[in-house]
């Protein structure tokens, strides 16, 4: 093996160029969209008049928080009532009680205990009044991604003869176990992710990787869109919940194609 003759200068130039690329991408795809979102939010705050809670007494500040929490709860219930008038199943996420609920005609038909809630920085930092309006639904899903099919259809031809028919009847095909990961996007830059709480995969690694690839592509396409767009998808407000695998599957398959979602924080 002959020794490679690369000068120190070349290595430094190469490393510097890589760092420059990282910085440029960070500025272009992350910092600029985030700054744009920040200025939009800041404008909304100043429109309301900058009277911060910091200027208030602790008692008043606590009372204001209570007013907001109660008003948000009221709005959540009003929207739940509104949803009871439609014929399809809706998803209610109650972060306060850690419950994911399927509701049909106002009747709670399925409940699943949320084991983990993850809220991203942007959502956490959002001023309360804007968080209220972001959540004030009902939000309609515009796009979704999932690791399972909504309708697990299997095409079958008729049996060739009665003995084959008897054989099928005696041992029907048992559906295979699948891992459940779902992403639902709304038109207000917000997404809800429902992930199975089990770490161990029940299905194939390939199916899992396929979902992860779709997931990554979805975010990448939003990033590129935000670069040319008018701030839409500049920053994605992300809420992720974890529930048992079977419950996540039940919820995803129960919901119609573009379901309504309500969130109570």
């Amino acid at each position, binding site marked *: 093996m002959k020794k490679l*003759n690369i000068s120190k200068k070349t290595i430094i130039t*190469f490393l510097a160029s*890589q760092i420059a*690329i*990282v910085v440029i991408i*960070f500025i272009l*795809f*992350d910092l600029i*969209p*985030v700054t744009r979102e920040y200025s939009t939010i800041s404008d909304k*705050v100043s429109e309301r*008049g900058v*009277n*911060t*809670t910091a*200027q*208030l007494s602790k*008692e*008043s500040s606590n*009372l*204001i928080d209570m*007013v907001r929490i109660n008003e948000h*709860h*009221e709005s959540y*219930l009003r929207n739940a*009532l509104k949803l*009871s008038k439609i*014929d399809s*199943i809706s998803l209610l996420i109650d972060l306060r009680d850690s419950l994911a609920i399927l509701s*049909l005609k*106002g*009747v*709670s*038909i*399925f409940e699943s205990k949320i084991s983990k809630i993850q809220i*991203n*920085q*942007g959502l956490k*930092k959002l001023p*309360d*009044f804007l968080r209220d309006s972001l959540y004030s639904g009902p939000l309609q899903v515009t796009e979704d991604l999932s690791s399972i099919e909504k*309708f697990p*259809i*299997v*095409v*079958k*031809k*008729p*049996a*060739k003869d*009665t003995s084959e*028919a008897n054989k099928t009847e005696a041992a*029907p095909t048992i*559906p295979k176990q699948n891992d459940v990961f779902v992403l639902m996007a709304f038109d207000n830059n917000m997404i809800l992710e429902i992930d199975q709480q089990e770490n161990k995969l029940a299905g194939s690694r390939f199916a899992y990787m396929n979902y992860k690839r779709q997931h990554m592509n979805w*975010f990448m396409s939003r990033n590129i869109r935000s670069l040319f767009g008018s701030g839409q998808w500049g*920053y994605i407000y992300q809420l992720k919940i974890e529930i048992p695998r*079977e419950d996540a599957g*039940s919820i995803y*398959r*129960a919901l119609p194609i573009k379901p309504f979602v309500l969130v109570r924080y």
Partner: protein
Amino acid sequence: MEKPEKKNILLILLAFFITVCVIFLCLAKSQTLKEVAISFYSYHDSPGDLAQKDSVQLTKQIKETQRRISVLQKRIENLAPATPYLIINTTKNTFVLRTKKEIIREGICSTGSYILLDAGDGQQWIFKTPKGQMRILGKITNPVWIKPDWAFIEESLPVPSKNDPERREPGSLGDYALTLGDGYMIHGTLYQRFLGLPVTHGCVRLGDDDLKTVFNNMEIGSKVFIF
């Protein structure tokens, strides 16, 4: 002269490959990088009009909101049926028979297999359980199954005429059946070992004891929620 050139080309290719990987990684990890970017910023919170109110006014506002919340909660509670109702989960193949206040019985059932039977010549049937809110339209004791065309086609048997006695199959639906409309029923099964699996042609199959309880508690008009 040739060897060093080849080496240079390889190095350039390697550098190019690393650069592409770095770009891809940065874009793939953009969500994380955005979290870094947003950590540079913080917003002022603005309580708006609430800041002008004193503690007495705020307490009054809280009480009024809480009163409205209780009214809304009551209204939502009242949306649940007053009589026993049945909830069927077609993904887990489970059922819950309940009233507004308590669960009467819960267990496993069998629902549609999602098989699409393609008999050719444009003849297709999909064996799925319909979802949504339904009502019990009829209650039958010792039901007889009137086999539809697909039941013969599926088994590769000749399809008999509409009223042919060959279509009648007593015993296969169990002791009771509750009709939901469009040919869908909640009934018993000879294949008890398949309960808990999606193996039906769209109907809901229950075990014998569960079926009896459901039959005795549900009236005509009772609600069935299938999801």
